[in-house]
């Protein structure tokens, strides 16, 4: 994103749709402004010259942090389901999908 490109209200609507959020007209406008402010703040990074810097995804140079294939105990069913808004038998229950 360059300095001139701005997030539009349609972008906000799209983001809300993907996150399954329902926004009111006022919220759409408010969040568009706020999101633009955040993006603008990060734009500061563009001031740096990164021409000779390799892109990286992690802050440090650690690689290959693996785990052995050994079984450890899982949670109790009760504990696993404790935070579920709705459950049925030993299942989590979700609203109709598709």
């Amino acid at each position, binding site marked *: 994103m360059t300095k001139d490109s701005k997030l539009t209200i349609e972008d906000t609507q799209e983001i809300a749709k993907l996150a399954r959020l329902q926004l009111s007209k006022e919220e759409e406008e408010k969040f568009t402004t706020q999101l633009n402010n955040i993006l603008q703040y990060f734009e500061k990074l563009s001031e740096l010259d990164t021409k000779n810097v390799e892109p990286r995804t*992690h802050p440090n140079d650690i*690689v290959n942090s693996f785990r052995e*294939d*050994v079984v450890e105990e899982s949670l109790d069913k009760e504990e696993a389901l404790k935070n579920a808004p709705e459950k049925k038998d*030993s299942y989590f229950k*979700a609203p*109709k999908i598709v």
Partner: protein
Amino acid sequence: MKSKVDSKFTPMIGLEIHCQLNTLKTKLFCSCNAQFRGEEPNTYTCPVCLGLPGSLPTVNENAIDCAIKLAHAFDSKINKRMYFFRKNYFYPDLPQNFQITQYNKAGGVAFADGGTISIKFDNKIKNIELDRFHLENDPGKLVHEGGDIESSNETLVDYNRSGIALIEIVTKPVIESPREARIFLKKLRSIISHCEIVDLTKDGAMRVDANISIKGHARAEVKNINSFKEVERALKWEIKRQINKLKKGQETEQETRNWNGKITTLLRSKESENEYRYFPEADLVPIEIKQDWIDDIKEKMPELPDERIARLQEEYGLKEYDATVITEDKEVADFYEECCKLNENYEAIKNWLMNDIMGILNEENLSISSTELKPKLVDEFISAIDSGKVTTKIAKKYISKIIKGIGIKKWMKKQGVKKITDKEKLNELADKIISDNPDVVEDLKKKPKTFQYFVGQMMKATRGQADIQLTRKILKEKLKKYMK
């Protein structure tokens, strides 16, 4: 096979195959037991695979071994440095709202690129090119209460499967017919089972999605092809749907469709790829695969299907076709070879195994290991035939019992079955049958083929126990005066 009418419509099929690394003991990113089948829902979960805040994934090292093995089997190029990505989507099968996977764009790479699987059909060899394969976690299992995915009102979720290691293999869109797709999948199955990274006897261990298009037009992705056997049917149906649409002057659309066992129906218009908002998974450090790791696995590679097919021909004198069919399922090939260690009548073992025993197993949808079938039972059975103690008729009657672990000797004793070689007894019986059927004897004068009727009556009267050669001889002797 293309018909004349449709020759201007060339189908292009690409397959995406998800294989569960269910030979691993634990899941891909956590230490939960991976042998979840048949267990109570949500009892094999932990904060990581439930996506609880603050939990951190760690990679199962053996999953990387499996992927390296597969790369050797396909002759794919392993990427030496890679990291995982988050694929974001909002769906209850993954509680994190993202899947941890690998991505070959945005600076990412798959686990390995390229590779081929060669298949043989209609006397030609075709190399099916692979695009790539990558590691990712399996989502949880959704149970659609009171109906299927389209008609049910609520969705129940079991996260026992959530986090199981998957390898997704993506072919290039180079498959030209449903039949070719089936032959390819058979070969792929054989390879992954010979690599011993996937136990294919487990339900859902290998799942197929298909991208189908008519050359020059938009493609549809068909999901939920639950059984391997249905791939060919689903593809045929979808190709027909697209061709019919084009013939009417309409265009096909990019969409995701659901195979319900009979037809494909629209599931959703395809989410554009950037809706997944892929970005690097910062909770996992990059993976670097050094050459010595790759070489180390190469040294330990098991025998692969093509090598085995060649060896079976050489060692047991099998025809290429038979060797290929046996090798399609590693379990069957292993079983065959175990039998051959006990009994040298390789041809008979092959015939009974492939024609009769596999027929029964397929019909009942069973794998060898889920039955009581043992090599020593096959040996006992073949020996009984070879020594003349058992007729083919009796053998055919018995064969379904072999998968229940019942030996032929025991079965015959219990049934009171014994091959009747008593000449006097058979003579008596033949006389009786001939005198009971004067009209058939009359027929025999005109139609010598009627002879077979008497053989049938003899076998019926002895419940298949009469020695067939002796029976024929006796009947010929008695009836030859009528047969001119």
